[in-house]
């Protein structure tokens, strides 16, 4: 979390709160982007894609490697062009990886016994994590800080509310891509096919929709958004590690469940909520227990409110 000034006596409380709000929204947009991948896959094939968090980590590594490749080997100096290339390349390559994963590890299991896809996804998660560890080493990979300038919004002296350029970039890119994505799902034949498969894949197949292809595209779209999150994560924290996928993955899944699994706006709302809760919990209670808070929310929501905030209650058919 960027900037945690100590609390002054009575003054600066509003500024501190506003600062945490900005930090929380930034973190929340990253979680929201990952959560969409979980929620879409669950909506369409009813499976928790356990490897999605690790895919996010892999995309972050791809972004790191593309960044280094573009700046040191190709020699582009403009940060804007570099980041655009990094984002697009990471989205493309991560989508390709998830396409291969879906085709080889999940598709053969459709119609198999009910735990099989989840176990396969857990295996895939271990595979991705350890592949990165073996291929790129276990150490943290730091990147020189970029976009460090800040804009002061309010306050003076020690109590300022500042928003850094990278926070602006993260929130802006997230909002832009969500708009594009929203258009894709709501206004194109592709999105219509997707929503049809979500409601009843057998009926959709009877009406001439290629269900396998639609599921593939769902995985590709989820991966592309995870890659955006991975790139933003790298820009925000400037460091990535092979084990970084697990905890953000669980938190994003929590966000998807909190928002109502299967619901796209729910995933974004849930992501923002989790980001805000985590930031405020660290700011006002204890930073050590912030992950405990996230995991507890997950358990409590799943047990007492499985339909989430915006989801539909699940009706079980026999």
């Amino acid at each position, binding site marked *: 979390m960027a900037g945690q000034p100590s609390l002054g006596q009575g003054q600066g409380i509003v500024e501190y709160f506003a600062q945490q709000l900005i930090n929380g929204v930034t973190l929340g947009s990253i979680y929201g982007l990952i959560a969409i991948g979980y929620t879409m896959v669950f909506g369409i094939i009813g499976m928790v894609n356990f490897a999605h968090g690790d895919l996010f980590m892999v995309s972050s590594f791809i972004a790191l490697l593309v960044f280094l490749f573009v700046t040191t080997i190709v020699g582009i100096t403009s940060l804007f062009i570099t980041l655009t290339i990094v984002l697009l390349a990471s989205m493309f390559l991560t989508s390709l990886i998830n396409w*291969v994963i879906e085709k080889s590890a999940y*598709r053969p299991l459709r119609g198999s016994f009910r735990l099989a896809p989840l176990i396969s996804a857990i295996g895939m998660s271990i595979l991705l994590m350890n592949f990165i560890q073996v291929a790129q080493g276990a150490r943290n990979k730091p990147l*020189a800080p970029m976009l460090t300038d800040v804009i002061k919004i309010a306050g003076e002296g020690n109590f300022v509310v500042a928003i850094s350029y990278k926070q602006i970039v993260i929130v802006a890119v997230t909002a832009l891509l969500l708009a594009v994505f929203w258009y894709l799902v709501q206004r194109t034949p592709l999105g219509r096919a997707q929503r049809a498969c979500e409601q009843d894949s057998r009926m959709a197949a009877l009406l001439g929709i290629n269900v396998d292809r639609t599921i593939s595209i769902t995985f590709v779209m989820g991966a592309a958004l995870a890659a955006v999150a991975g790139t933003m994560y790298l820009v925000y924290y400037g460091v990535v590690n092979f084990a970084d996928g697990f905890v953000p993955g*669980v938190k994003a899944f929590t966000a998807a469940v909190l928002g109502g699994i299967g619901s796209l706006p729910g995933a974004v709302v849930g992501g923002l909520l989790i980001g805000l809760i985590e930031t405020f919990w660290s700011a006002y209670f204890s930073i050590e227990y912030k992950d405990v808070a996230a995991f507890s929310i997950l358990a409590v929501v799943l047990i007492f409110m499985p339909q989430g905030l915006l989801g539909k209650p699940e009706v079980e058919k026999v």
Partner: protein
Amino acid sequence: MATMQSPAADPAMKPGLDYGAAFKDACLAGIIAFLIFGLLLGYETQQTLTNQIILVPRTMLLAGVVAIVVIGRFLINLWSAHRAQTLKTAPTKTTNPLLLKLEAQAGPAFLIAAVLFPAIVIIANGELQSSRYLVDLGILLLTYVMLGWGLNVVVGLAGLLDLGYVAFYAVGAYTYALLATTLVKLPGLEWLAPWMFWICLPVSGLLAALWGVILGFPVLRLRGDYLAIVTLAFGEIIRLVLINWVDVTNGGAGISSIPRPTFFGLPFSAADNGFAATFGITFDPMHRIIFLYYVIVALAAVTFIVTLRLRRLPIGRAWEALREDEIACRSLGINTTNTKLTAFSIGAMFGGFAGCFFAARQGFISPESFVFMESAIILAIVVLGGLGSMLGVIIATMVLIGGPEMLRNVESLRLVFGSDFDPTKYRMLILGIGMVLIMIWKPRGLISTREPTVTLGKKAQAISGDFVKEGHG
């Protein structure tokens, strides 16, 4: 990605060995592999002294991997086309009956082998000290076998996917560590010190079982995927609490100098009241290792026998029924609450015993030993061996835990892969690939059957579980 070579038999492949199409498909796979691995494997990130990261190309490695993918994909294409031609009927998915028959005999055979193991090793080596490595390895393997059998009750028999099993292992270990290090300090209880392990063992098991009920109760309504995720969350919460509750658990630094188990009151020391002196033999630190080995053999045997007997009781049959179809189970009047809770608590109890043993053997524990990956390894053992299979757990443990350990000592591998080659580095990678491949090839694991443990004689077997569509519950 190695899984690209999975037999995802291309529907486009026509019968008749079409080399051209197979080659084209293989080239396409090669292009995809090049795109995916181009950066991830093709460049290594290295840190310079100024903490900057530079890229170092690894062209040969990349070329090798892409070549393997192309050739592998080509061969698989040919193989599946060939098989489509020769094999008209789909192969049956049931396990070889010979293996199932073997499983029935496996228990006593493995028990005898396990009991004789140290003796064989020591006779082969001629002295005690040099056989320490192998006996230690035996202890490690048996610990995982026991954990696998414990989790097997929850996942294999009752069909409840538990991703937080390591939490109960942690409860057992911390129970022993905390009790053993604090109880003996209380005035008037010093005389208990030599008996600590034997007092704490049942306590650890009971506490773990209690935690099984506590964590099992809220998740009763959840099914399949959700249950798995919530148990994962519980496992992580327990680990995070262990890290952060420094006053009690000493946090990430862990608890050290945990008392070692004694030979029913006789410590394994060179002292006059020690084990060696009492039995009139020369003192050797290996005595304790061998004793620990037999303790874990006994614990594993207890786990095996209890599970085997429970399967034949009504509760065991209820577990198997629950695994197959929860809704049908409830309609037939089985109390699913009790069935689930007993599965959770009995599985947890074995985990607690194993944890207590682990703490006593190591003498030091920290939250590092109870990470999610440990749960994943135990789950992988159960899944790969075959859900519900006791023999499968043994085989999977030998392969997953013993395999890399043995490979580490093979000198010739080092000549091929370089001097710093360490197969344990690749263990988790292979484990992940194995989990995916086994799910595709045999979703029920290597040795598996859906036959109920108890049937009504020959007649009832006319409709085997393998022919019945699975219910969802």
